């Protein structure tokens, strides 16, 4: 037999023993307690104490349940009366159907919304957590301090780090370089039958890629798939696009780069259904392929075009590794004159929510938005709970008599508490069921707004279901506890005599407090939404310093495209529907300007690292830039190409030039080696926003360079009402000069709007949640108002008999609610103001929330609340007093 220690006897948790003693039948108590204790003692020798405790508790609960089930055959017992509680609760809910409806629908809506938001939050937080050793996986980013310019926080770093990471840096277990080909002007892929596509999400990665990132492959061996030059991994969706089937291993595609073409062979297919990751890609080719194309690339020190990832050994400190790299880089790169860099190790799992560096693979989300949405969802739940509590306490008077009767007939307080809790759980349970029915209906719309592709299966995970059950029990307890404890404490005699109503005063104050709280939450959301919308409107309509409408942009992807640029431009200019065409190294919203050194003759600095915009004489015309001093470049002055500069206001201010026109300066740029250009400033343009309004306008130097080495984009200003024809014409022109490459174009305005996609999503989600919140809060108010009106029926009748007018009585009923709303607003305004200021700080250019928005929010709330209360008040006020007085 097993070992049964006699001393010292470990005792089971006391609360569990208590539970057993309370619920087990007396005849069975002693023997059962003995059995359980014996087993418990043995268990403590086999497993940790808490394990045994848990087991004991489970056994007690199960025993009580079994015992109870057995008891059902014997209705005479003094058991838990569960069935009876449910029967009574159901009867009650059916009797007051409107009350039940308000509670259940409010709870269902709020639980459904909360569920969706929590699923969203869970999805946002689950990014990159599926890789083995994800807690040790870092991206090496760099902070660069250029001379005389603002710090650059770059997500990427130099590929030349690789040999150090592999051999010389202790604590690094594995590393991989990833390079987004987009920065080298994108990838054009050609099928065997000659079709060409441009693929923006094309990466090159070291063979260790799948060692670090556990993307599931449906075909191919992750260990070797990226070993050879010419190896290509693609997603299932891309395999279907190119080959019509997901079974693509062994198929080939041609990669086109300038004049060279490289055959790529598919060695693996990545599952479309993969856990979320910041690493967005459709194609991954081997790093060896890239090195065959651009051999210099692997050793680049100056340039930081690649994402470098490292998995550290267990216990290694990311801070130490970063410091080690920084020291080494400063030692070695000093000799080549590279700018100061500090390396930073970012946990990969935190990139999606917290990293806002330059050149992210895809723009990341913001953790603040996740917090905001969670808070809103929580607020929604709280409001629905408050409805429940308010209505339940308000109804308590009506039920006081029932309680008194039950007490007289021998009900104990515990039984009454259980009775009320049963009702409470029944309502939350119904709410939960309704919410679960609602979620599938809301899911597609939610996905569209949130930009997610959540499936029902993602939502109804075991942990989520557990959370839901916990939520339901929690809400049931929270919402049911007040009426349960409050009502069950009535003195039966006073209740039956009808004098207990005086006890309602405290409850009324409590209800009013809760209403204020509810509407304060609604007001915060409403004002917040208003400010977000205002800011979004501001962003979309602010004068950006250039005109973004009717501008089509298309990229020149390699030297061949650039060679034909002058001819292409001349041809485009000929078209009647084209106002002007211009090439440039970059266009607003596309980023990617290079910073070079400049040396002004007379200024408050000797030299300055400044963003260069290499353009074309017609640039200002295409973008409608405003020349506020001097003149624009001119095609007719060939010397403009060699000696003229335009500056923006920010640059003039930075250099302390009150009148920049005529200032002499030298500027470096790179054209097969460094070239220094001498010349003078011929004009100043009004500041225009090159990037999103999150960032301030930086100093920019504009000049012209020949040949067209820097022309990476062509921008065309159109004057057309027949867009399809115009686009077809542009495509035909393009095809004449670049027959081998597909014509891809972007409208500048839509591209610019896309920079605010995260904010747009937030504003829409926020807007919908606010509407739901306000609706639920008003639902509660409606219920409360109808109850108040009903309760005061007799008073209203008497007043009317004595000559009160309908409007007088309406005022009487509504006044109180208005005061509560006013208090709620006074509380909400400063809170919202402070919160929203913090959000607005994210934008270098933002609105100042004015009184108007607060007034508008107040107006909406008051109007909706008045509608809810007023309808009930009106009904009570116009009722024939004779019915009222005969009431009771």
């Amino acid at each position, binding site marked *: 037999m*097993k070992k*049964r220690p*006699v001393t010292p*006897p470990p005792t089971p948790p006391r609360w569990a023993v208590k539970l057993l003693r309370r619920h087990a039948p007396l005849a*069975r108590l*002693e*023997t*059962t*307690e*003995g*059995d*359980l*204790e*014996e*087993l418990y*003692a043995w268990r403590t020798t086999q497993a940790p104490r808490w394990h045994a405790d848990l087991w004991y508790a*489970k*056994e007690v609960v*199960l*025993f*009580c*349940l*079994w*015992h109870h*089930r*057995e008891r059902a055959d014997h209705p005479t017992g003094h058991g838990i009366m569960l069935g009876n509680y449910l029967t009574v609760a159901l009867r009650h809910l059916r009797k007051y159907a409107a009350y039940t409806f308000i509670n259940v629908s409010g709870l269902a809506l709020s639980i459904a919304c909360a569920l969706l938001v929590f699923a969203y939050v869970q999805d946002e937080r689950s990014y990159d957590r599926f890789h083995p050793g994800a807690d040790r996986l870092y991206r090496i980013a760099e902070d660069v301090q250029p001379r005389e310019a603002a710090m650059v926080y770059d997500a990427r770093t130099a590929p030349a780090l690789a040999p150090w990471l592999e051999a010389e840096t202790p604590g690094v277990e594995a590393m991989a370089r990833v390079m987004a080909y987009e920065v080298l002007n994108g990838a054009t892929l050609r099928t065997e039958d000659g079709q060409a596509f441009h693929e923006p999400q094309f990466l090159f990665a070291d063979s260790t890629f799948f060692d670090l990132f556990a993307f599931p492959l449906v075909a191919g061996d992750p260990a070797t798939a990226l070993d050879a030059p010419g190896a290509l991994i693609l997603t299932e969706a891309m395999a279907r696009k190119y080959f019509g089937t997901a079974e693509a291993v062994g198929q080939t595609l041609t990669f086109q780069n300038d004049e060279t073409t490289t055959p790529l062979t598919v060695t693996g297919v990545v599952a479309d259904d993969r856990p979320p990751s910041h690493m967005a890609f459709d194609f991954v080719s081997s790093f060896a392929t890239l090195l065959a194309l651009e051999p210099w690339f692997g050793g680049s020190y100056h340039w930081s075009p690649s994402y470098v990832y490292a998995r550290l050994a267990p216990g290694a400190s990311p801070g130490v590794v970063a410091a080690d790299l920084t020291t080494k880089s400063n030692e070695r790169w000093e000799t080549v004159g590279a700018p100061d860099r500090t390396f930073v190790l970012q946990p990969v799992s935190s990139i999606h929510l917290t990293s806002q560096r330059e050149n992210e693979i895809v723009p990341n989300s913001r953790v603040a938005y996740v917090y905001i949405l969670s808070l809103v969802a929580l607020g929604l739940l709280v409001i629905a709970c408050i409805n429940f509590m308010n209505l339940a306490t308000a109804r308590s008077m009506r039920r006081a008599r029932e309680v008194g009767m039950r007490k007289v007939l021998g009900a104990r307080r515990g039984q009454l508490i259980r009775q009320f809790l049963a009702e409470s759980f029944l309502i939350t349970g119904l709410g939960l069921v309704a919410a679960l029915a609602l979620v599938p209906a809301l899911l597609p719309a939610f996905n569209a707004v949130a930009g997610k592709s959540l499936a029902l299966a993602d939502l109804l995970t075991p942990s989520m279901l557990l959370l839901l059950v916990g939520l339901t029990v929690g809400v049931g307890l929270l919402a049911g506890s007040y009426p349960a404890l409050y009502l069950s404490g009535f003195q039966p005699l006073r209740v039956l005599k009808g004098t207990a109503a005086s006890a309602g005063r405290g409850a009324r104050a409590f209800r009013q407090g809760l209403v204020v709280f509810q509407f304060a939450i609604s007001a915060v959301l409403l004002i917040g939404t208003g400010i977000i919308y205002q800011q979004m409107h501001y962003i979309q309509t602010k004068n950006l310093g250039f005109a973004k409408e009717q501008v089509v942009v298309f990229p020149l992807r390699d030297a061949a495209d650039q060679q034909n640029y002058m001819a292409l431009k001349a041809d485009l200019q000929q078209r009647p529907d084209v106002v002007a065409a211009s090439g440039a190294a970059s266009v607003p919203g596309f980023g990617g300007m290079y910073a070079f050194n400049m040396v002004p003759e007379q200024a408050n600095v000797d030299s300055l690292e400044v963003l260069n915009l290499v353009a074309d004489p017609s640039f200002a015309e295409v973008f409608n830039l405003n020349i506020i001093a001097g003149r624009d470049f001119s095609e007719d002055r060939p010397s403009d190409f060699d000696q003229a500069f335009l500056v923006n206001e920010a640059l003039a201010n930075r250099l302390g030039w009150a009148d920049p026109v005529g200032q002499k300066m030298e500027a470096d740029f790179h054209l097969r080696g460094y070239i220094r250009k001498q010349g003078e400033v011929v004009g100043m343009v009004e500041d225009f926003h090159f990037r999103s309004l999150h960032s301030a306008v930086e100093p920019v130097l504009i000049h012209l360079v020949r040949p067209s080495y820097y022309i990476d984009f062509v921008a065309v200003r159109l004057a057309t009402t027949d867009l399809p024809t115009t686009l077809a014409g542009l495509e035909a022109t393009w095809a004449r000069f670049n027959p081998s490459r597909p014509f891809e174009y972007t409208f500048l305005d839509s591209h610019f709007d896309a920079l605010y996609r995260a904010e747009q999503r937030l504003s829409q989600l926020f807007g919908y949640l606010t509407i739901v919140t306000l609706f639920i809060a008003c639902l509660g108010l409606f219920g409360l108002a109808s109850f108040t009106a009903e309760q005061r029926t007799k008073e209203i009748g008497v007043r009317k008999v004595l000559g009160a007018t309908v409007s007088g009585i309406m005022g009487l009923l509504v006044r109180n609610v208005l005061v509560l709303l006013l208090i709620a607003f006074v509380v909400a305004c400063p809170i919202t103001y402070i919160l929203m200021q913090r959000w607005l700080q994210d934008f270098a250019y933002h609105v100042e929330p004015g009184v108007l928005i607060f007034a508008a929010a107040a107006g909406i709330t008051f109007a909706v609340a008045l509608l809810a209360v007023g309808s009930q008040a009106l009904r009570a006020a116009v009722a024939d007093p004779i019915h009222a007085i005969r009431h009771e």
Partner: protein
Amino acid sequence: MSHKRLGEFEELILLTVCTLTDDAYGVTIKETLHREANRTASVGAIYATLDRLERKGFVESWVGGATAVRGGRRKRYYRVTSSGLAVLAEVRRVREHLWRGLDDLGLAGMV
């Protein structure tokens, strides 16, 4: 006649009580079930079944004397009644008859 039937778990418990002869109480029944049939049942479930068996008249129980262990609490012992033995024998007879049928068909090896 329904009270004369045995559920699968009831049958197991009844057999266990039989094999334990004089030492059948909650803990030993639970342990035997676990050891012999690899069944983990809560004490509550076992007692519920024993109650049912007792109502059907297949087992009888009595409370034993005070014990030195388990906080001096007494044990409730169970013993199979004659009708309990009869119903077990009946169950066995039916099963063996059916198995023999399978043997005759030469199918027993397949099961």
